[in-house]
């Protein structure tokens, strides 16, 4: 395998990840107290996949998953928001090495790191990129798109913070730790 090419495992992870992302976005939205809005569990999943498989997988799962979901459920793709999903997946994935979830350790320090990273990634995506692209492509009023971005960003940060952390902690438990064996005397 040449170094700069995607490994087979990453390719499959992108494909299956995108499929799961779509299903979660369509079916596993938890109704929230605010009318007509739901808590999107798919972004928590995206964060998990980004941490497990790295930035390229994270970015592409966001891109393919969001674009296909828009296409098959609404018939048109909102590219400005798809771009945000890609950026969020990519940025969270950059922390994959630091979190090293495969070691099976997901302690308080890592939980804090993960949450700082996801808040920065999503803040950048939802508060800056999404409104900027909306204005550029659709020439919509600035204050409207910034409010939309603010709302989407905050609710996604909370979702990823709560469900994403739960998922990562659960995933870490299924990995065996490197020093988990004890010698019987």
């Amino acid at each position, binding site marked *: 395998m040449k170094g700069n090419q*995607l490994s087979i495992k990453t390719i499959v992870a992108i494909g*299956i990840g995108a499929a799961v992302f779509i299903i979660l976005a369509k*079916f596993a939205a938890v109704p929230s107290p605010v009318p007509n809005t739901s808590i999107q569990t798919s972004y*928590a999943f995206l964060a998990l996949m980004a941490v497990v498989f790295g930035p390229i997988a994270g970015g592409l799962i966001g891109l393919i998953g969001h674009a296909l979901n828009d*296409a098959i459920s*609404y018939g048109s793709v909102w590219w400005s928001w798809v771009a945000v999903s890609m950026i969020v997946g990519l940025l969270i994935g950059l922390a994959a090495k630091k979190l090293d979830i495969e070691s099976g350790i997901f302690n308080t320090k890592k939980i804090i790191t993960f949450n700082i990273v996801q808040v920065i990634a999503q803040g950048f995506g939802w508060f800056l990129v999404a409104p900027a692209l909306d204005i550029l492509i659709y020439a919509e009023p*600035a204050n409207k798109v910034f409010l939309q971005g603010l709302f989407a960003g905050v609710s996604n940060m909370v979702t990823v913070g709560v469900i994403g952390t739960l998922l990562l902690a659960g995933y870490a438990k299924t990995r065996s730790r490197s020093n988990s064996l004890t010698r019987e005397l």
Partner: protein
Amino acid sequence: MAVEMLSYIDRKTPIHQLTGVTKLICFIVWSSAAMLTYDTRILAFLFIFSIVIFIVSKIKVSEVSFVLIFILVFLFINNMAIYLFSPQEGVKIYGSSHVLIEIAGRYNVTIEQIFYQCNVTLKYFAVIPIALLFIVTTHPSEFAASLNKIGVSYRISYAVALALRYIPDVQRDFRTIALSQQARGIDMSKKEKLPIRIKNAASIIFPLILSSLDKIETISNAMELRGFGKSNKRTWYSARPFQRGDYVTLFVFGVIFVTAMVVTFHDGNRFYNPFES
């Protein structure tokens, strides 16, 4: 839980006979044209032309109506929001103000605002028929082949193909898990308190993720065994050779795109302004 999805509809029409590559390129060209322009004349032309193509494809409106209704509701809410947040946006863009009705403060109704919002709506309308057609007339496996043909690396195209292939499988898994967890009394609906609801959601997602990770393992082993990714190129079972119709269509779309861009930008402004004399 029966949420409808758009999928391939098989008919024998000239649109279906075009290769996936042609349709993909046309779709991209069309959406970029509609994205870049704000010229009302161009948008109106794009909209009418796309309706004509829609009729040629013999897709019934009833087959895609669930999506259309959703889009109309979305556009309505969107228009309301634009007006609420920025009732003077049109005046700002077109640089004049013809007041029709006075309401409190800056919330008066101007012709410019109405015109601007019609343009926003038209912008969506010009893309929707083409986007819908692209989705319902392109076979999923041909779509992946087309992605590869227009220059996307075949590894990523294959990931898209995998995603499309596994959506039904994952959906079935999800349903099974959700039902069995509900049978154990785990509730995700409004009847439960919010924190518990979120915890319950995690307990449904988690088995789904673990089973998906298993799936990733199995599939990547199978692909590895078959030597996937060894060569630089890959052939596609569902790729079809170009025919005359494809060349003609691409040419026509190219001409439309260039004309649209020239008309839009020749005066250095992407908005068409009927108010200046």
